[in-house]
């Protein structure tokens, strides 16, 4: 089946099954590999993208469910230059291996759009993404620095 997907402002036509996971369509059909595969069951958040601005785990999102939406990936997030979140990630030296950071940054960006100065508890309940390198303390510091800014 053919679907029209609007990703980072550009409409792409993809010929895939209706239940093809958005993650793999982004990566393998569109070559947008900034969005990562971590678990495939929406447990880890490495695949987080924005669908109409909402943080969404793309590994369990069927392509047919996002037709007509605005999809943003990490490649689109900072297309016009680094966002304040990305800059804060550099300033606070957040990433280590970096693999989970696309998903982290997408999740945090969506949260901050709604709640610019989350408490630690609000942050912890919203951001359930997994980082195995242990960058959480720096992530927390980076988010709080944005709230102060």
């Amino acid at each position, binding site marked *: 089946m053919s679907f029209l997907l609007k990703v980072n402002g550009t409409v792409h036509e993809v010929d*895939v*099954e209706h239940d*093809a*996971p958005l993650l*793999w369509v982004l*990566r*393998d*059909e569109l*070559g*947008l*590999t*900034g*969005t*990562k*595969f*971590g*678990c*495939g*069951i929406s*447990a*880890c958040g*490495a695949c987080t993208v924005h669908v109409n601005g909402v943080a969404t785990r793309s590994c369990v999102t069927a392509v047919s469910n996002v037709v007509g939406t605005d999809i943003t*990936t*990490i*490649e689109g*997030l*900072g297309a016009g230059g*680094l966002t304040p979140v*990305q800059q804060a*990630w*550099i300033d606070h*030296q*957040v*990433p*280590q*291996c*970096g*693999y*989970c*950071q*696309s998903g982290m*940054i997408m999740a945090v960006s969506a949260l901050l759009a709604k709640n610019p100065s989350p408490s630690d508890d609000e*942050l*912890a*309940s919203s*951001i*359930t*993404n*997994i*980082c*195995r*390198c*242990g*960058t*959480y*303390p*720096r*992530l*927390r510091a980076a988010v709080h620095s944005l709230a102060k800014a």
Partner: protein
Amino acid sequence: MPSRRMIVLGGLGTAGALVVGYALWPSHRLERADKLAAKPGERFVANWIKISPDNSVTVVVPHCDMGTGIYTALPQMAAEELDADWSTVHVEAAPPDPLFANGSLAEGFILASRHMTGDQIPAFLRGTVANTFRTIASYMDLQVTGGSSAVRATGVYGMRVAGAAAREMLVKAAAARWNVATAECTTKSNHVLHAASGKSLGYGELAAEAATYSPSPTPALKPKSAYTLVGKPIPRVDIPEKVNGVTNYGLDVQVPGMSYAAIKISPVFGGKLKAVSVGDVSKMRGVQKIVQLDDAVVVVADRYWRARDAVEALNPVFDNGANGGVTSATITSRRMAALKSADLKSDLKTGSGADALSGGRIVEATYQVPYLAHATMEPMNATALFKDGKLEVWSGTQDGLGARAQCAKTAKLDMENVTYHLLPMGGGFGRRLPGFFNFLDYAVKTAMAMPGTPVKLIFSREEDMQHDFYRPNVMSHFRAALDAKGMPIAWANDYTTDGGADTEAHIDYGIPNQEIRYVKVPTHVPTGPWRSVEASWHGFFIESFVDELAHAANIDPVAYRLQLLADKPRHAEVVRQVAARAGWGTPLPKGKARGIAMVESFETIVAHVVEIEIAPDGRLKVDRVVSAVDCGMAVNPDGLKAQIEGGIIYGLSAALFGEITIDKGAVMQQSFPDYDVVRLAQCPTIEVHIVESGAALGGAGEPGTPPIAPAVTNAIFAATGIRVRELPLKNVSLASSRPQSARL
């Protein structure tokens, strides 16, 4: 014929000296390096250092990036000695060629390291060095990134020396051009200066002439007081590309015409594929080939999700062999029996050993930890193309050269016919070290079944978790005798091991009579190095039992440790610092308590004080971790702190949740829901304090991990009187705890 070790040792007058000489290249090797890794106009002037006509410097790092910051710390060390302006320094990954191997460094480093004697190989390289050294005859060397060794081996014995040697060669070239003595020349910001005449030449202009000189194996190194780059928290060079999705991990590689593969491996380790009923699976959309391997079935399709759906639709039948009945309980019984058997071998005996247990008050306890998976965020994967008798492979591993060798072996090809592209890793933690390259083997075999087609094979999270090389499930049985003052006069530790004797079972505490024995209990479950390796369990065992002794003696655990560390001033200072920084001994609100643990691993001493809170329903919260670390000197203090933070969180995940269990010979856990890890909600605040002792450099990537579990369980004891002797904590009920008067 003398062994290789004898040859190396023969020249090792002082630790590292020969290593350096061994590692530096004569000029004909520089020419080969130019061919392999220099762009037009660039010239290699010494190991790993390239200089461009515009004076900029490129440091070629013979390690892989897994997020530990070595792509910044190692160039910092080279640039420091080279007197290069940091803004002109570029960093590149070394190609997986023997020319760029760090094996000679690693080998000399291992032999020079104070823990290494005789045939001992450090645990982080066990199975790595052993394997690779066995293949050295054909493949020469290794490019390992592991064992917290990059900065203290490649950095100290390699990068610094190479930078200094390169600087000397550049000075010689300038002095010759000006016809002045080298002693009259100085260097600054990528230039050689001659103060008397006011002349100055850029490194770029001098590079070609400099390369004609032989590098000195013993160039003059800067004193620490002259450092301008080393010791500074320079931002990591790899981070900008990790905030915008640009970093190209193994999983991200795009090869034109590529297919995708999903795999189902025999759930029981060592099982064999018996039969696959293909049925309609081969007709599923995109399916190109079903490849039957010895112990697995692979589906290759035009897209990954189609390969994954197809492999899940197959119902392969495996022959489980002799191990189909093994469970965690049968493994535990075997370990317990082994500890009571006559098979225990002596690891260490001092004084009267266990005989001294006859006097004094006896304290006895048995500890156990489970198997653990690495669970890197990037599941295991590799992309391979077999075409015209040549193999090309793309993957992220902790040893590019070892990976290339492994691919050649699997494909039965000469190294020359194998190209390996080393890519950044989404986490390593020991999983991607050589000896544990099952993902490469499967990718290569699949590609060879489809000549001409590049195939990207990706483990599902479930396959990744069920076909790891696990942190071993091990046990320790302790006995100690306390004198009238409560101090230990005898210490006995019998432990099980998957390998040989563990150096990390040896204690830093001054106890006059010690007897440490081990018994090997191999199982069919494959094991491997897991961040901090042996220290991850011995640290928990030893620091818990020492805490038991302190409480048995009714002495404050910090004071008790300090008494036992009278002959270890560095260790004692770390304990004092962490206690002071954490406010040890100051009152805490009801329900809260502190615990301490101190472990030296990879030549770095780390102590944590943990503050926990236990709710009336037994829910445990780790609020705060205060850490003190002495790794000699911090090459990049912010990078060191990040590594300690990461080590703490990795170890905390294991302490709270980590458990791989075996049933019917196979791993029961599949993914993050049943192998949970610390997320933001469980992450404590962490403060890392650096203690600069000036001792020889220790590691950074691993030493933060071992003390965290015992610091937490020691705090639990302080809060509740419950002594946790088996991890993880998710299995321990703290609800029925009887609050003890917390005096800490």
